[in-house]
Each structure stands twice: as C-alpha cells, then as structure tokens.
C-alpha cells in the first residue's frame, strides 16, 4: 500500500504535466493509462475535436469533458461539396449550442465545418458565452447577416470571425457596423463569401482602423480595387490578405496608390481573392512578391503569360492555387522559379467542356514534380494522363502526403498506351510512403486497389469514382489499408460481398460513403442489425428502400461509427438500418 502511494503524484502535478499535452491523440492515450489519469485528464481537457457530429451526442461530450473551452465539429460528408448529399440531410448545430450554452459558460472557440448553422444558433452563441473569441464557419450554411450582427454586437472580445466558403443569406451589409467601438481585439476576419453589394465599407474601414492586431483579412468581391489601398494603409501589419474585386480601368494614380499601399505591408506573406482580375494591376504586387509564401489565384481568370510574370517574382512561394489557364508553360516556369513549393492546386476553368480549352496536360505536373523537390500536396484537374507520367511524378516526389488527381472525363485510359492507369497510381502509393490522402480518376481496374491495399499503409482518406471491376477492389482497400479513416466511393461496381466480409473494419473508420454502387438493401439491413456500433444510413429521394426487393441496390449509403446510436434528425429520405428504428411509412 505504502509503496503504491510513494509512486503517485498529487493531482495538481499531473494536471500541470497534462497541460503541456495538446494533441488529441496524446490526450486520448493519457486517458487510457489508468482510472485516475482518466479522471484527471477529463477535467482538464480544454479542446475537443469531433470529426463527425453524429458519432457522439452533446450530452456525452459534456459528461466526459466538463471544462471545455474550444470545440470543433464537422457535419456533412465530404461529397456534400459536390451536391451529392441532398438538402436537409442534417448536420444541424443548434442542439450542440443549446446544450453547451448551459454546460460551458466559458466556451471561447467554436469551429464548424459543413454544418447547418441558423441565425438562432448564432444568436444563442452571442448570448451564452461571455468570453467568446473565435468563430470559424467553414463551408456552412443556413444563416444570414442578421445572425452575424448578433455575434458582432455581443462578442466584446472577438478575435476571429472566419466565414470561408459558407453560404450566407445576405440581407444587409450593415451587420459590420454592429461591432461596437470598443471592439479592438480582432485578429482575423474572413468575409470573402459574402455577396452583398453593400458591405458597409465605412464600417469596415473603422473596424480595421481600431484593431491593431489584425493579421488576417479577406474581403469580399463587392469591395472594389480602389478601396484596397485605404484598407491596407490602415493595416500595414497584415500577414494574410484577400482582395475583393481586382478590376478597374487602368489609372496611373490608382495604380501607384495601390502599389504604395502594398509595399507598406512588410509582413504580408499570403494573398488571395483576385476576382475579376485586370492583369495591368498585377505589377502593383511586385514589391511584396519576394516575401509571398502563399498565393491563391484560383478565381483569377488571367492567362498564362500574366500568371508566369507574376509567379516568376515569387521565389519563396510554398503554396499556389491557380486555374488551368496557367497551362503547362506556366507550370514549367513555376518549377524553375519556386523551389520551395509544397502545395499546388490547379482547378479547371471549364469543367463541363468536352474539348480542352487550355493547353494544360500531365506535362505541367511532371515539370513541377521535377523542379520542386519539396512538393507534398497536389490537387490537379486535367484531361489526359499517362502511367509513365505518374511513375515519374511518384519517383520525383516521394514525400507526397496528399495526391488528388482528377481526369475530367471518367474512365479515361493512359492516352499513350490506352491501358488503365493502375500502374501509375500504384507507383504513387508505392513510392510515397507517407501518403495520407489519395483521390483516383481515369480508367482503373481492381489492380489499382491491390496496389493501394498493399502499399497504402498510412493512407487515411481515399476518394474513388468510376473505378474497379468487382468486389475484390473494395476488399483490397478495406483489408489492406490499416490507417484508413474515410472512404468515399461513387459509381463503382462494389457490392455486398466486400462490405460484409470487412464489416469489422468499418468500426475502425470514421465513415464510409458509397453512392451509385451495387450494395443491396438487404446487405444494409444486415449490417445495421449485426453492427450496433455503426450507424448505417440509406439515402433515397425517390422511394423508400423497402418498397423494392431486398436485392435491389440502394442509391446512397453512409456508414459511420457512433456511440450515440441512430440520430433523431433524419429527414424523410434518410433511413436508418438500426434494428431499433422501425421504418415507418
């Protein structure tokens, strides 16, 4: 007995030690050591990350972690970004806010992704949390500028308001004027998603003026080019800036004013925005280009020569987002100018066009892989690819952690040999041992999945479309990819066999999405019955799945692990396969 006590520390000491442990993984490990560590740890956990808001209930989180100050929640599946998840599916945050309002009076940070946030939720946040500091609404929807007005008015010490990629009902630009004169704490403000023509610019100017710690500001498209200089001169300490509209008739005084304003921003490292770009105004950026590490030109419809000129001024660039107007020639220039490049995203300017409208091929990506040894993250849309190119890229960039390739036409083969692209993607997973995220495209057989299952040991997220021949493909992935957390599949001939044979695997993953595949309703019911730790949800907007034979395939299937049981907010077109939930019609 005495020996045990000699080896135990007082709680305060353990608490102090635990306070240095920030990562969720480490905190989870700490909590598993013994009962007393579990108890101490749960009382001092301040940050909670919930990757799927339906995996656990608010009450469960509150019960286990009573003193949380910061929460991050994700709602809809990733394929919601591409319209595959019908409206009304779910992801409502209100219940979370309501429960936390009572339990966490000191909650200071809320970060949400792909959730439905109503004005009511925002008003509740404004009312309930006296120390509220950070609100990030990433790709959210359901709220209007009225809700934002409530946040602005009530949150006296707001540091961050980031609405990136959200859909906001723009009722009035005057919400900005709701920030009280006493609010001087803003560090980050991202309103780039707002469409309102009348963003109260004078309110914005005054706000920027009185927030000396503002480091990150992303304006929306309604802010015209001539206003940028005003803002920048009020905030020369900015590190990250998103322009609004970057178009105006070329006027020398406007140009020199703008160039001067940019050059006064000695800390500026990251630029974005650039809607409606007039190329003649790009040289106004030249003074800060040598310091730029991140450039988002993915809305800039400027052509390759202008892009080349700009990029060649940015030798320190680490991150570039751009449209395919950059073309192979632009990427070759990038490869020779930007040796520090870590992340490249090339988006399609004409995604629905059948014929290529620009000269962007696999050559551009090959050039970058050759010239940029630090390349880690790639998102690339193009219209042709070859196994040879993929092998070259894999060999040049063994440090890739994210590789997402989208060949626009489904099932496109190697354009040189007409073979499937199995070998090419196989080379990627084989050479890139730290690959965590992979998106496939082009003509692919079950072989590519064999490679992925064999080599993709660190793969956490896989996106598959129009690929594979049979259940064997899915079986390779589920049985081989040890680190797999998220799997999303559309339009593949994967059916019941692989899914049922690997049912236990699903309990180790965050979620599985399958749409337009070959999984039968019967198999879904079976999974729902036999796997109580999984929520198996069938989505069908045309008719109830049980109005057809059990062997009939379901339209969409979303399976995720959950300790909360089936959810209560399912719309009529979502059916839970949980045995306890009767299908009512």
């Amino acid at each position, binding site marked *: 007995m005495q020996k045990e006590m000699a080896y135990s520390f007082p709680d305060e000491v353990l608490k102090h030690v635990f306070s240095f442990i920030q990562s969720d993984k480490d905190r989870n490990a700490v909590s598993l050591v013994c009962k007393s560590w579990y108890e101490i740890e749960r009382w001092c956990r301040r940050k909670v990350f919930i990757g799927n808001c339906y995996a656990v209930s608010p009450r469960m989180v509150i019960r286990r972690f009573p003193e949380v100050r910061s929460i991050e929640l994700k709602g809809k599946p990733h394929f919601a970004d*591409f319209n595959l998840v019908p*409206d009304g599916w779910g992801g409502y945050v209100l219940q979370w806010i309501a429960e936390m309002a009572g339990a966490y009076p000191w909650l200071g940070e809320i970060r949400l992704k792909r959730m439905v946030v109503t004005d009511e939720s925002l008003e509740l946040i404004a009312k309930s949390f006296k120390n509220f500091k950070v609100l990030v609404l990433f790709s959210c929807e359901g709220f209007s500028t009225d809700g934002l007005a409530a946040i602005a008015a009530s949150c006296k010490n707001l540091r961050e308001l980031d609405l990136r990629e959200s859909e906001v009902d723009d009722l009035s630009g005057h919400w900005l004027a709701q920030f009280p004169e006493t609010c001087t704490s803003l560090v980050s403000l991202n309103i780039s998603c707002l469409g309102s*023509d009348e963003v109260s610019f004078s309110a914005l100017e005054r706000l920027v003026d009185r927030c000396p710690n503002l480091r990150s500001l992303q304006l929306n498209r309604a802010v015209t080019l001539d206003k940028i200089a005003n803002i920048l001169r009020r905030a020369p300490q900015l590190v990250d800036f998103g322009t609004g509209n970057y178009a105006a008739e070329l006027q020398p005084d406007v140009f020199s004013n703008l160039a001067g304003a940019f050059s006064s921003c000695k800390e500026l490292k990251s630029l974005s925005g650039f809607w409606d770009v007039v190329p003649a105004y790009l040289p106004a950026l030249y003074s800060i280009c040598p310091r730029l590490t991140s450039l988002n030109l993915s809305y800039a*419809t400027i052509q390759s020569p202008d892009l080349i000129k700009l990029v060649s001024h940015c030798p320190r660039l680490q991150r570039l987002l751009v449209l395919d107007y950059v073309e192979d020639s632009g990427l070759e220039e990038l490869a020779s100018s930007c040796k520090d490049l870590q992340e490249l995203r090339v988006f399609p300017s004409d995604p629905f066009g059948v014929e290529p409208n620009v000269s962007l091929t696999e050559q551009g990506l090959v050039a970058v892989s050759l010239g940029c040894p630090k390349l880690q993250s790639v998102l690339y849309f193009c219209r042709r690819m070859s196994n040879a190119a993929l092998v070259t890229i894999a060999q040049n960039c063994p440090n890739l952690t994210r590789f997402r390739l989208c060949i626009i036409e*489904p099932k496109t083969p190697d354009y040189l040999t007409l073979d499937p692209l199995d070998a090419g993607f196989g080379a990627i997973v084989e050479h890139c041992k730290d690959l965590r995220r992979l998106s496939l495209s082009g003509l692919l057989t079950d072989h590519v999945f064999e490679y992925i299952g064999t080599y993709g040991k660190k793969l956490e997220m896989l996106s598959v479309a129009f690929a594979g021949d049979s259940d064997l493909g899915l*079986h390779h992935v589920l049985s081989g990819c040890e680190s797999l957390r998220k799997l999303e599949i559309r339009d593949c001939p994967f059916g019941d066999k692989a899914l049922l044979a690997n049912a236990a695997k699903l309990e180790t993953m965050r979620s599985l999405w399958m749409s337009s595949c070959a999984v039968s309703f019967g198999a879904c019911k079976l999974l729902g019955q*036999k796997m109580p730790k999984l929520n198996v949800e069938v989505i069908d907007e045309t008719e109830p799945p049980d109005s057809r034979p059990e062997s009939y395939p379901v339209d969409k299937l979303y399976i995720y692990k959950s300790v909360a049981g089936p959810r209560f907010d399912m719309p009529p077109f979502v059916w839970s396969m949980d045995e306890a939930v009767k299908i009512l019609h």
Partner: protein
Amino acid sequence: MCMELQLGLALPGSDTWSRPLLKLGLYEDINVNRKKRGFDHGYLEDEFSAASFKNYEKGLVGWPPVETWRRKKLRCQVHNHMTAAENGYCGGRASNSSYVKVKMEGVVIARKIDISIHQSFETLTTTIMTMFDIFDENRRSFKLTYQDKEGDWLIAEDVPWRTFVRSLKCLKLIRSRG
C-alpha cells in the same frame, strides 16, 4: 474470384443481378435537386429543358468534383469575361445596377426592369404584365419564370423572394399550359 463471408453473414437474395452503374439519368438530377423544383416536360418549352441541363452535360451529378460555391463564383466571372452574353452578365447587379432583362414569349424586343424597387412577386408580376400590355383577364394565362446564376430556368414564385432576388439573372414571361 471466390470470397468467403468471414462473419457468416449471408445474403438473402442472389448476387447476379445487374444494373447500369453510370447513372446518366437526367431525371435523377430533377429529383435530387429539391431546391430547384422540376417542371413538367409538357409544360415548358424544350428551350428550358436544354438550358437547365446544360450544366450536367453527361447527366452526372457532382462530377467533375469542383465545389458548388467555386463553380458558381467562377461561372459568374467567365460570363463577365465573355461580354457578348445575350442574357446580360451574371450578377449584373454586382456592378451597381439593379436592372434586369425581361422577355416575353413571342415578343422580339426585351425590356428592362429595376428589381430593387420591388419587395414581392405581386408588384413585380403586375409591373411586368403592364409593361407587356397584358390585361387583368389574361394575366392568369401567363407565368413568370427566371434564369438563375447557374443557368437554370425556374418558376419565379417557387422560391422565397430573397432567394429569387439573390440568384436572379433575367426574367421571361411565358404562356402557361394546362
């Protein structure tokens, strides 16, 4: 290939059915996209059907995988780029103009209407009907439709006013059938 069902779970039915996996069904799009209510094919002209589906050239929802918001923002800009767009540029009101083109089926010359002075469909419809000299007793045989920023043609009163105004690109008055 022969696979064992390791959990001993058995399927009730056979697994030899087949179905087309690449859903090219345009009808799927109508059903899936609840926000934009479909219209009867016998109700509107073919022109509308074609325009509505031009975004889904192959009838594939969500492919290529470009985020919806990104597509919308880009489409607005590409339209601005191509100045000859017959329907005026997308987000015309973003350049401080609240005037929207109004056409009537069968009438060659289009008119323009200031959308900002209207707060409801009633006043808007009345103004437009008057503009084209359609009198009370005939008004019931016309329907107001609009093209939104994504190029789709929709029935004006099917969506809330705010949504309509936000996504409105141009208007067309058509004869209702049936």
